[in-house]
């Protein structure tokens, strides 16, 4: 698993990359009340705003960590946004992306580096 400075996690699943936010990020956000997901089939470029998360406190964006095509989104979050707080590292993934340049993954931190980053 890889981690970004924006507190996203990236997990490789066959030829796709699954993206979510870290436990740390979900704690900082507070109770999530709304998730605005991208459309399947959308081509995104690294740093595009692809997801909006609204917590009781504020709205935050999730940026595309890599270039590629959104091939699946986690529709469950539209009805149950609270899952982002309950299981951010597991069930509450946001989208799956088909990378156009898997090499972009190399830029990101491993878990040890991320733990150090947030400590």
């Amino acid at each position, binding site marked *: 698993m890889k981690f970004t400075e924006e507190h996203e996690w990236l997990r490789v699943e066959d030829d796709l990359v699954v993206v979510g936010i870290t436990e740390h990020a979900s704690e900082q956000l*507070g*109770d999530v*009340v*709304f998730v*605005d997901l991208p459309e399947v089939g959308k081509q995104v470029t690294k740093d595009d705003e692809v997801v*909006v998360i*609204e917590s*009781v*406190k*504020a*709205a935050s964006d999730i940026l595309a960590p890599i270039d590629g095509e959104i091939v699946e989104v986690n529709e469950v979050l*539209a009805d149950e*946004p609270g899952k982002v707080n309950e299981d951010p590292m597991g069930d509450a993934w946001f989208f799956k992306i088909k990378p156009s340049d898997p090499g972009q993954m190399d830029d990101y931190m491993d878990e040890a580096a991320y733990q150090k980053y947030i400590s």
Partner: protein
Amino acid sequence: MADLRLTPLNALHRELGAKMVPFAGYEMPVQYPLGVMKEHLHCRARAGLFDVSHMGQVILRAPGGYEAVARAMEGLVPVDLIGLGAMRQRYGFFTDEAGGILDDLMLANRGDHMFVVVNAACKSQDIAHMRAHLPGCEIEEVTDRALLALQGPAAEAVLAAMVPDVTDMRFMDVGIFGSEFGELWISRSGYTGEDGYEISVAEAQAERFARALLAHEDVEPIGLGARDSLRLEAGLCLYGHDIDTTTTPVEASLSWAIQKVRRTVGDRAGGFPGAERILDELSNGPLRARVGLCPEGRAPMREGTLLFSTAEGGEAVGHVTSGGFGPTIEAPMSMGYVPAGLASPGTELYGEVRGKRLPVRVVPLPFTPANFKR
């Protein structure tokens, strides 16, 4: 967080695990480990304890007693203060010459003097305003007392275990009671839409008093985050957001706070700053009004969201002044200003969120029914 003032409960907040933030010059708890959503729901279900010591507590005296203070204060506030009964309080606001709102406040008749509670962010300005315009009144800011709010359906039982007489108080009654925590100044009021009390306690007793309240299984500490969602569900204004010097009390849908005796036909009509405009708006209606807004989807429409009368094109007709998610109603909720012709409940409007116009409906306030003990 340098230069921030601390309330007498600062150490207790930290011990309870609060996340502290700067607010109106004070370091205040925004949430505790329970989190905003659960704090909010707990307050509606049982009882919540809030530290509101940052608010200003002011005593006003005059040689002529309460009535003399009330008569002077009526020159700043469009509310019937002379007619306010002993040991009763009323909501009101300082207005300016243009009819705008300088601050909103609670005013109490405490027999031989007046006691007022003003917003933290406005208190130095309010005190200067009173000193400048209330000649003959002695104005004393109370700086050695904390202010706590205990709100929720269990508040009465919790407080009555320490001060039995509070069960006899009705909504907006005030009282001064002896207790093992010294003299307590109590009003049956609050900012959540729930039954409850605001309690002024000597600084030196404040932490011990707060711990005694928190020791009750029904009481959880509540931060500013849930305080905001609770007051928004209750349809209550936040100064600096829903009301300010650009909004008149009539536009702000606060006409209910202006008693008949201060209106055009009343015995003491006008006589407050901005009376011309405010009385005209009371008679002829304002051009715009503060309304409740219920977004039809799940996306919250926050402060600053522009409102449109059509799904495409046209200029904005209004804007949101407070918005978020209501944990009790389990839906997004907002308040904002719209033209009078679009202010009727049921009116369909659009709020522009991240470039998309999403449907939103004008609804009556509050979002949750008030639970006061009348």
